[in-house]
């Protein structure tokens, strides 16, 4: 629509991700490296799934709308499965890399824990996924026009931005839960992550009924956020302590010599 819509939607879509990057990742070079590697893995999974989709579209009958819709659904499901496969592959790679890093470094403890790696890799997946979702749309939002001349809904840009924000945060939460489940061999948790990813992706087929796709996505985001919080070591007690500012006493009380 104009520059104000462009900046507004950019900030909505990438605001939390930029904030997380600035405060938690930017100062540690190792985390930056693993973030970018995670983004790269997501990109490779996208490349593979789009290759498969492209070939299947060329083979198919381009006239039949039903077939095209079916192909689209197949493409989405395949892409989700490939992304999760690559998340698992990245996990395996990181485990091996950690052992190697430990062998090389002089210290006794690992420079970065698997929990942090889970967070960083999830955020990396989220960044790349968000970029591919929304950059195309942002580029067109700079012009003077808004969506609607053919009857589509006016809120296309806004809802795309909100959806992208949800996806980026969801990828981060999924990363945390997935890596922890792989560590503890809890395969039902892995399946739950995959299923929730599928659900969120398929919810977008509800568009342009943006309410019916955005609200359930945000509900899932909230639930996944809570799950990831607990997985990462948080608890309701810690939260209450933080919020009521009793943390100083807690630290002192829990201080133990290593």
């Amino acid at each position, binding site marked *: 629509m104009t520059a*104000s819509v462009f900046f507004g939607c950019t900030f909505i879509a990438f605001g939390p991700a930029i904030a997380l990057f600035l405060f938690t990742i930017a100062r540690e070079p190792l985390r930056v490296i693993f973030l970018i590697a995670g983004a790269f893995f997501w990109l490779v999974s996208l490349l593979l799934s789009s290759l498969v989709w492209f070939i299947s579209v060329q083979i198919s009958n381009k006239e039949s709308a039903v077939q095209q819709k079916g192909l689209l659904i197949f493409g989405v499901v395949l892409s989700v499965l490939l992304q999760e496969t690559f998340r698992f592959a990245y996990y395996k790679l990181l485990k091996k890399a950690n052992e190697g890093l430990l062998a090389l470094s002089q210290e006794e403890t690992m420079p970065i824990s698997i929990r942090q790696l889970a967070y960083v890799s999830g955020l990396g997946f989220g960044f790349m996924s968000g970029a591919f*979702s929304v950059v195309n749309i942002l580029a067109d939002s700079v012009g003077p026009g808004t*969506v609607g001349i053919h009857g589509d809904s006016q809120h296309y840009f806004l809802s795309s931005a909100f959806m992208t924000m949800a996806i980026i945060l969801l990828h981060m939460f999924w990363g945390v839960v997935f890596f922890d489940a792989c560590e503890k061999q809890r395969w039902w948790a892995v399946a739950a992550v995959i299923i929730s990813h599928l659900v969120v992706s398929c919810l977008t087929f509800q568009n342009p009924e943006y309410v019916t796709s955005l609200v359930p996505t945000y509900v899932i985001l909230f639930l996944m956020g809570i799950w990831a919080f607990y997985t990462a070591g948080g608890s309701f007690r*810690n939260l209450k302590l933080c919020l009521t500012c009793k943390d100083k006493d807690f630290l002192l009380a829990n201080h133990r010599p290593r």
Partner: protein
Amino acid sequence: QTHIADEGKVKPLSHPRCYSAFLSFAGVSCNSVEKKIYVHLNYTVSCVRLLNATHQIGCQSSLSGNVGVLHVLESEENLDWVLHSGPNPPYMVILESPLFTRSVMMKLKNGSGRVAGVAVVAPNTNPAEGFSPHTTCPNENTGVYSETYEPTMANCNMTVWNPLGNGLSYEEFDFPIFSLKDDNDTQVIRQCYLDHNRAGNGSTPQYPLCAMQLYSHMSAVTDTATCMRRNAINFSLNPEMVCDPLGDQNVWASTRPLNNTAKGHKMWESVVIAAARLDSRSFFFDIAPGAQSGVSGFVTLLAAAHALRNATQEAQPNRTILYTFFQGETFDYIGSSRMVYDMENKQFVVDLDNVHSVLEIGQVGLRADSKLWLHTDPVSRRNESLNVTVDVPGFSQPLPPSSFQRFLRARPIPGVVLEDHQSAYTNKFYESMYDNAENLNVSYPPNLTPEEQLEYITDTARAVTEVATMVARALYRQAGGEESQLSSIKADPQIVTKMLYSFLVRSNNSWFQQLVPSDFTSYLGKPPNFYVGVVQQSSEPTLLVQYLLANLTGSTINITQDNCKNQREDESDKMYNYMWVQGAAPPNSTEREGYCVRSTARLSKALSPAFDLEQYTSKNFSTWTESRWKFIKGRIFLVASHELEMLTLGVGVGVLLSSLLVTYIISSKADILFSSGREPTNATY
């Protein structure tokens, strides 16, 4: 002018509905968000900026295109909405053709920022009451009548030649003005206006509103001297040109071959010049059907030249007849001023001392009461050396705007101008986009194929043939030919009707296909356009007239294609011009049999002497230039309200700031928040 081919020429109607699965997936079959937002205009014809020594005329848009809310103007009173009371300026005004008048456009011009642009819907039939955007006194400063030569006749003090002229073509507008055809695409625009912008029962229309963006940014400003100076700046490896001079080439041929390499005065050569005009213009760029103002004149001359072919080859008259077709006459006589200049400076085959008299054919297509009028210059008229059976305007009247005036500026040569009007023009659509076949009453019975239409002899063709016959006989007698030959000189109505069809309706027909060389056939088939254009680009009508003239006055030579091309390099080049043309395909084959045409038809440069002399503020010569532009395009879309945009920006900034805050808080308290389940041995935070 550098026009990059229009981008985004997408079909504006009915694109299939897309499923926008826009996440975790790339390469959806309907691949552009842009298609959801914009509908591109297919047919973009705009008015462009022209500059001369003192003024700039035409239209200009801003560098990033002018955006305005659509408004279809219902009447002149409805202008009040656009100029004063409408709540969402600036407006893009859509005008139907009855409202495209001087008063409406002047009010819009003074709209002070509330008018973003104008789109005029061109009707399919000509308006009944006439329309001419040209001035009332064409070429008033570069003719022969001036302060020094009979000032009472200057500036149309005695006769106003174009009384219907409203001068719109010579006004300057600071917003773009486009022309739309009255077809489905324009109906989409009107429908968008009706759906979104129509205020119902006095209430203001609600956002989102339908809007249009027009791009026609012109690089040149102020006047010709400024833009030529800017052309000459050599800042970088690719200097940017901002304007180009208007010009093209004149076509000329002679009944007796003249030695083309020996320029200047030719001893014992006395020449009768038969002149006609090739070009025309309209308010919009590259639209100039020019039927009555140009085509009628030069078709008559071509037919007369054809009628004289046999007579001048068998019994040569004393004097040579020089057929000249001038380009650029609309813009202060570019072609004829150049030819007179070349003659004065010994750059042409003959010079002014060789010229015996001039017969010019003006607008002869619309003969009311089948009358023709001979106009002469009352100041220089001495003994009437032309003896033809037409009427002379009874009173002392100046010459109408004509190329002959430029010859008179140099020397008092006897001459006449043949027109179909006694004083003011009978052409109601002089230099406008309506001066087309309909204006000349060239119409064909229904259900004829294009080839049948080509051969059908219309009434207009018959009338023009009569004029051509008369002109041919007058020229022959003027050149000193014998009286006995006169009755055998007759113009061929078949040729005339084919020429009128080709120049007014369709040029891609079987007859033209035979006459042109094979590398020219791709240029046939464009709609007829007689705008002179910039000097670097030779316009198609000029070359077509040259090929026609060669075919109608020359002869076929039986030599091979290579010899035909080689003859150009031989010494015969000085006398004749050789051309290899496609020819027709024999009935049982698809290969065309070409042949070589030998003729005296040649081209001579028609660029105003002001550019060679670098006198860009000259008052004597034409100084017209055309600005360059990058692209001309338009598109329609919906716009949202300013409040919604600001709200989006506000929400975005709010999300960013709150996420920064929350992240800072969480990261500073991360030790406590994520403390339970800590593995004491090999975990670090």
